[in-house]
Structures are given as structure tokens and as C-alpha cells.
């Protein structure tokens, strides 16, 4: 039971991150590796603010804003000009330049703040006991907050005008552009949203376990695996996938060892790519045609 609860909570955080990835991937088909960089830089910004004696709330707000700005800068300076230059869609070029940005961000963090592991909270975490279960305070916060964030995101997607537009953009950008909406601005907004979700997920993890500059890539890959396992055509898919991946990873820790977590995650990815490439929640469609 303890293992399942742990898996559920880490799975929810992965879900939030996977939503962040999908918020860019669905509208623009950009494989946004730089998200890993954003994931890594957010807690460092918060930490730097804490060093200047700012209150925790302000620090977190600044960090989230910085992540959003960085994410939007990506679209503004890299992806949008690329799209303008090459008339046809070129996923490879986007992927490579995003990889470049990721490397730059990570190395800048390492140069400015050093590569040691840092922590946001001070002292030992408090715990709650529910029956035989032991839940730490930060686990409880991240579990509840992720749950509400996911719920809020889904409601927003369904009821808000902007949310509906965003859903339309994810579904078919060309058609939306033809109907006279400004998809440039909407895409910029999608990148901002992605940065926001990533920053939140990153702060939860950083608050719970600490952080160093190199956490970005593995977290990003988890998000991608969750998205593909869950199904990438919808926004429900990444949530299901994230929770599933979180559960499986905690089971792996329980039965084998934490060192095999990554290997297992990618084993699941390969199995899914072969047997059900459209994911759990996706409808049947071939990946290769894209």
C-alpha cells in the first residue's frame, strides 16, 4: 500500500510534467527537449531568490514566471523563426535546436550555480501517519496540488474560451489558422503554459528530494514516455500514462533496485511503441505517417 501511494504521488507529478510536454507537442509537433532545461533551472531560480532573503512564496512565483518566460523565448527566438524559414515542417531541425538549447541551459546553470545537489526546504520533512501509511509533508502537498492542478487544467480545457481554442490548436493548427485565428500568439501561449506546468512539477520534485543541474533530461524523458504510453492525441492520455509510469517505477524500486528504474521505463516505452503505438487512451492511428 505504501508503495502504491508513493507511486501514485510521483505519478501525478510526472503527469503534470507530461501535460507540459504535450502542451507544446500537440499544437506544434515540436519535440521540446529544452523543457528538460526549464525543469532544471526553475528550482535554481527559486533557490537564488531564497538566498536574497525573499519569502518562499515570492521565490516560487519568480521561478514559475522565469520558467514561462524562458519557454516563450524558445518559441520566439528559435522555433518560430525556423518555421518561417523552412516552409515545410521539419521536426528534425526543431529537435536538434531544442537539444542545443537544453545543453546551453544546463551548462549555464552548472557554471552559475555549480553542479552540487541543493535543497529548497530546511531541516527534515514532517510526516503524517494514516494507519500504517507514512506520508511526508512535501509528498502530501505535491500529491494534492498536482491533483487539483490536473483537475483545473481539464476543466479549463473544456469550459474556458481560451481552453477550447487551445484544444482546437492541438487538434488541427492549419484549420484553426484558416478560420482566422492568430495561431502564432496561441502557440506562444502554448509554450508559456508548458513552461508553467513544467515549473510546477519541477518545484514539487525539488522541494521533496533536492535538485542538481542534471535532473532535467531524465525528468523530460519520463514525461515523454508517459505521454506515449498514455496516448499523445489527447490530454487525458499523458495523465493516465504519468500515473502508470509512477506506479511501475515505484514497484521496480520495491522489487529490484532504484538503479534499474530507467531501464524498466524505457522497456515499457518500447513495448508500447510496438504493441500499442497510439497509447492507452489514443484512438487507432499509425505513428509513422504522422
Amino acid at each position, binding site marked *: 500500500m505504501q508503495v502504491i501511494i508513493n507511486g501514485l504521488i510521483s505519478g501525478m507529478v510526472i503527469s503534470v510534467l507530461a501535460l507540459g510536454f504535450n502542451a507544446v507537442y500537440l499544437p506544434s509537433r515540436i*519535440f521540446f527537449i529544452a523543457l528538460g532545461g526549464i525543469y532544471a533551472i526553475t528550482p535554481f531560480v527559486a533557490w537564488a531568490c531564497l538566498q536574497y532573503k525573499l519569502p518562499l512564496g515570492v521565490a516560487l512565483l519568480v521561478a514559475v514566471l522565469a520558467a514561462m518566460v524562458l519557454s516563450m523565448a524558445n518559441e520566439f527566438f*528559435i522555433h518560430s*523563426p*525556423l518555421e518561417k*524559414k*523552412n516552409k*515545410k515542417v*521539419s*521536426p*528534425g*531541425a526543431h*529537435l*536538434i*535546436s531544442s*537539444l*542545443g*538549447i*537544453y*545543453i*546551453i541551459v*544546463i*551548462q*549555464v546553470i*552548472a*557554471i552559475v550555480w555549480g553542479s552540487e545537489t541543493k535543497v529548497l526546504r530546511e531541516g527534515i520533512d514532517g510526516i503524517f501517519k494514516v494507519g500504517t501509511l507514512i506520508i511526508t509533508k512535501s509528498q502530501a502537498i505535491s500529491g494534492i496540488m498536482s491533483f487539483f492542478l490536473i483537475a483545473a487544467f481539464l476543466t479549463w480545457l473544456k469550459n474556458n474560451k481560451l481552453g477550447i481554442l487551445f484544444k482546437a490548436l492541438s487538434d488541427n493548427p492549419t484549420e484553426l489558422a484558416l478560420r482566422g485565428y492568430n495561431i502564432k500568439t496561441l502557440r506562444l501561449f502554448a509554450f508559456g503554459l508548458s513552461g508553467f506546468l513544467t515549473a510546477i512539477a519541477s518545484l514539487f520534485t525539488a522541494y521533496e528530494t533536492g535538485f542538481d543541474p542534471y535532473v532535467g*533530461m531524465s525528468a523530460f*524523458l519520463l514525461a*515523454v514516455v508517459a505521454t*506515449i504510453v498514455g496516448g499523445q492525441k489527447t490530454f487525458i492520455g499523458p495523465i493516465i500514462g504519468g500515473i502508470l509510469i509512477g506506479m511501475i517505477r515505484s514497484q521496480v524500486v520495491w522489487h529490484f*533496485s532504484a*538503479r*534499474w528504474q*530507467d*531501464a524498466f521505463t*524505457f*522497456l515499457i*516505452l*518500447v513495448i508500447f*511503441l*510496438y504493441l500499442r*503505438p497510439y497509447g492507452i487512451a489514443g484512438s487507432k492511428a499509425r*505513428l*509513422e505517417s*504522422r
Partner: protein
Amino acid sequence: MNYILHLLIYFNIYAIIAISLNMVVGYTNLLSLAHAGYYAIGCYTYALVTIKLNMGFLPALVLAVFIAALMSLAISLPAWRFKGDFFVLVSLSVQVFLYSLFYNWVSSDSGIDTIGTLKNLTNGPYGIPGIPKPSILSIKFDSIGMIFILSSVLLGICLVISWNLLKSPWGRLLKGIRDDELLARNIGKNVRLAKIQVIAIACGMASAAGTVYASYISYIDPSSASLDDSILFLCMVLVGGVGNFRGPIVGAAVLLLIPEMLRFLSIPDSIAANVRLLLYGLLLVLVVRLRPQGIAGEYRVE
């Protein structure tokens, strides 16, 4: 003098890898992030068979190439179905899997003499020390100059192989697959077999480069199989350019010389490695933006 020879050996190793990766990226348009894994397979195979079985350099080389070519099925079979981002993901999975294998195949109560047994094949994060210098027949390659000659010969062989292959009808078939796979299939070409062949040859070459590296450094640990190395290799071919022969060699030279030039600037040691990686990232972004075909390449990766 030794410093220049050291650089040239590294250049030879990188050039072999860049040439091999060029065959995959430039001629079939599959961005593979698993190349460092295959390079490390070469390193480990060489280390284990020379230490444990006392093999000479040539049999060890043949064995390493064979094993890597066999393991390359792990990325060439998925290449039948996946293209673009999804192939990148699959190759990344293979990379992560190989890295975990090298990193985790170790038992806790292991001494140095249990390396190579089934319980402790790779000695995990501690690596394998004391890899013997190569010897062919009775010639011992134990000085830095001799290893330079060995690596140059190997680079020459790889160049000749890939030159002949890519100028042959088979090479044109690869270009055809790259430009229009459906058409190549339509006129009755065996696209799947060609993909398996090219990836096997490329991975075998990377493995050969790994054997030279292992014998030169005489120590090997899982960091040679890390994702950073895969990214570096990809960076070499993309910056240099793909689709012809100059490109990858130029790329290997550029990515080797940039960090060496940093050595002469007064950058503190603590951040030198970071600055080097930072430049790789910057190069990737600039190349994609300003010159998508690379410095000396022919084909635009898109």
C-alpha cells in the same frame, strides 16, 4: 609532440565514429542517439576478451565488431517502422538500456579479479582498469606513436570501406531511401534489409573505434556510454555536415579543436568542461539556424 599525437589519436577515433554515424544520419536520415552505446560495446568487449581470454588485438577487434553488429538489430529492427522523433526515442531507449547494463552489471561483494564473470561482467561504475596495449602478431603497440599508427590504419580502412560502399549501387539505394522511401520500396528494393545492413556496418565501425580507445586509455568505465557522448557524436556529424565524406571529418576536427583552443584561454578548470559543452549546444543551435547542411555537408537534416 606527445600532445599532438594524443590529439591525433582522438581525432582518428572521432573521425571513425563520425564516418560511421554519417552513414546512418546522412544516408538514411535516422537520427540515432545510441551510438555511444555501441562505441562502449567495443570498449568493453576489447577489455574483457584481452584481459580474460588473452586474445590478440585482431581477434578482439573482429569479435567487438561482430557483437556490435549483432546488437545493432536493437535499433535497426525498430527503424523499419519508426521515423523522425519516434526513432530518436527508440534509439534513446537502447542507449539508456545499454548504459544501465554497463553501470549495473556488478555485484556488491566483487573484487578486482571477479571482473568478467557472469556476476560481475563490467565492474559497474568502478570500470575496468589495466587493459593491455594491443599487439598484432609479434608487433607491440605500446608507445603513443605506435597507437597513432594503429588508429590511422583503422581510420584508413574505415574510410575505404565506407567510400566503396557508398559509391556502389547499394549507397545509391540508401540515398534513395533517404529521399523517398516509398518510391524505393515501389521499385522493388529491399528497404528493410538495406537499413539493417547500414546500421550494422555503422555500429560495427563505432565498436572498432571503441577498441582503439580502450587500448589507448587502458581503462574503461560506463561514462563512455553516457548520453552526453551520444550527443557529442551526433553534434559532430551535424556540425560538420552529412551526406558526403568531408562533412563528418570536418565535424570531428572542429569539435575536437574547440575544447583544445579553450585550453589556451584562461578559463578556470572548474568550469572548463561546462564551457566546452555549452559551445557544443551553441554550435547545434547556430548550425540548424544558419546552415542546416552543416559546415561541409550536402544533405539537410530535416
